[in-house]
């Protein structure tokens, strides 16, 4: 295990944890329910750690990415349903990320939002074309570390640490009306969805194949999953806690992504604002890359095409055409002028509906001795995996009713 590589891998995971959905929902969760939803972030993070570790292990041992093995496990018909659901979910999410990045550039430079959407999509496509896989991951992930300013801002505003610590204990606030209770339920579902987005697992597992992971990388996989996701989650929790302290008492429920940047501006002034916006820019741009590439990986793997950014673009032509076409499709969604917050809500909804279909094959594969040999799921991974599968199934069933009954969490 190379310590430098491991450290860079962890930092990349930290910087790449927060995307536009987590940004929006962390800020709204804090302003609406104070610290009471911190435990949901922590709980969901354990879930993504469990499934990320599993997907990395499947990549390292079976030497096949999740979608290849998923089709073999589920068969053609159910596999097609999963593929289609995942394409739609990832496409909407990618559009939300592109919209988010364009908004952030508007806050930074004042340049028109839709113009920025076109320019940034072209720049992102160019970056994926030119750079090798490892550099793509590292650049967006490491520059996303500017998001640490949110953690620093939390320290800077001297919050009630005891209340924040208490927020890690599973709870439902007392004295809520029925509608408020349903809104709390909707936020729980939305946070689970945002943290456990399917694209993260597809991208991570395909990345493991790109980097030619083997049994010797299992420890790296485990440490990167635990530390990278765990520390990244603390950034999302910082955004929530800042919002609880700054927005909640001021009766602000952040309606646009740019509001979160105020959390760093209030204690640190202009430099805090700029660092927050830069962190958000690279974290969300990195998420746009991951969602689009995850879709391209899924399609190529499902149909048995050559795939991978470890090859030159012309060595995997159908894969290359696919990821470019997907970026263009996501851009076209943004160019319809649809509100970014609407895209975020749709991304959350589509994602939670797809989650059970995404994680069931992974659970079955990671527990299959034929593929995994002695590296099959142990009791802890098996137990946690099935618990989280039950949780995401319940969340998937309740997502649409809660969304409708609470007007998308607006009460």
């Amino acid at each position, binding site marked *: 295990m190379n310590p430098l590589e491991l450290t860079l891998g962890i930092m990349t995971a930290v910087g790449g944890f927060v995307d536009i959905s987590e940004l929006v929902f962390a800020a709204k969760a804090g302003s609406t329910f104070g610290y009471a939803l911190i435990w949901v972030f922590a709980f969901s993070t354990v879930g993504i750690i469990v499934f990320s570790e599993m997907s990395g292990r499947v990549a390292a041992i079976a030497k096949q990415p999740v979608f290849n093995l998923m089709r073999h496990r589920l068969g053609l018909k159910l596999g097609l349903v999963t593929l289609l659901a995942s394409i739609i979910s990832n496409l909407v999410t990618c559009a939300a990320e592109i919209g988010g990045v364009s908004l952030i550039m508007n*806050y*930074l430079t004042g340049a028109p939002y839709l113009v920025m959407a076109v320019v940034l999509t072209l720049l992102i496509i160019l970056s994926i074309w030119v750079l090798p896989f490892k550099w793509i991951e590292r650049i967006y992930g490491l520059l996303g570390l500017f998001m640490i300013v949110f953690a620093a801002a939390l320290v800077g505003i001297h919050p009630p640490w005891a209340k924040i610590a208490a927020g890690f204990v599973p709870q439902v606030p007392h004295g809520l009306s029925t509608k408020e209770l349903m809104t709390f339920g909707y936020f729980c579902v939305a946070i689970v969805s945002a943290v456990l987005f399917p694209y993260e697992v597809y991208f991570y597992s395909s990345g493991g194949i790109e980097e030619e992971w083997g049994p010797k990388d299992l420890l790296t996989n485990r440490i990167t999953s635990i530390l990278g996701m765990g520390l990244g989650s603390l950034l999302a929790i910082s955004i929530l806690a800042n919002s609880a302290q700054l927005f909640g008492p001021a009766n602000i429920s952040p309606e646009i992504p*740019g509001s979160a940047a105020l959390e760093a501006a209030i204690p640190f002034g202009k430099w805090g604002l700029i660092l927050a916006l830069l962190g958000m820019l690279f974290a969300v741009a990195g998420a746009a890359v991951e969602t689009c590439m995850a879709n391209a990986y899924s399609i190529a793997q499902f149909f048995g095409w050559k795939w991978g950014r470890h090859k030159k673009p012309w060595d995997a032509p159908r894969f290359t055409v696919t990821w470019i076409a997907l970026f263009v499709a996501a851009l076209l969604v943004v160019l319809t002028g649809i509100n970014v917050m609407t895209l975020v809500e749709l991304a959350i909804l589509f994602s939670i509906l797809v989650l059970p279909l995404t994680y069931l094959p992974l659970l079955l594969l990671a527990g299959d001795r034929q593929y995994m040999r002695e590296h099959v799921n142990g009791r802890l991974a098996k137990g946690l995996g099935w618990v989280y599968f039950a949780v995401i199934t319940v969340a998937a069933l309740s997502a649409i009713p809660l969304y409708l009954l609470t007007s998308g969490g607006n009460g």
Partner: protein
Amino acid sequence: MLILAALLAGCSGSCPEADLQYIKQARSIGAEWALINEQANANNLTPTYVTSMHVWLRQQLQTSSTSLTKPDSRYGKEIQALLQQPDDVAPDEIRAHVARLKQIEDQLESA
């Protein structure tokens, strides 16, 4: 099925409860606008950010206003009055509108 039926059978046409979510949105947007102007006056924000946020907040406020089923109500007029304000209005001025919207919001929620 039952939930959908309940939704359909619920408040149809125009009634204040249907406008509650837009009143909340407008209240929140107003409060955020006040915070931004306060921070801008304290020189904590870049002018570009302030201008952009004003544009987006105003757009959201306009959406809330046009979504109201009773635009000529007390809360409708309050939101319109907020929209008439210049971007760099004093934070206390906005907060006065926000306080009135909060009062209406609380009345409707307890009704």
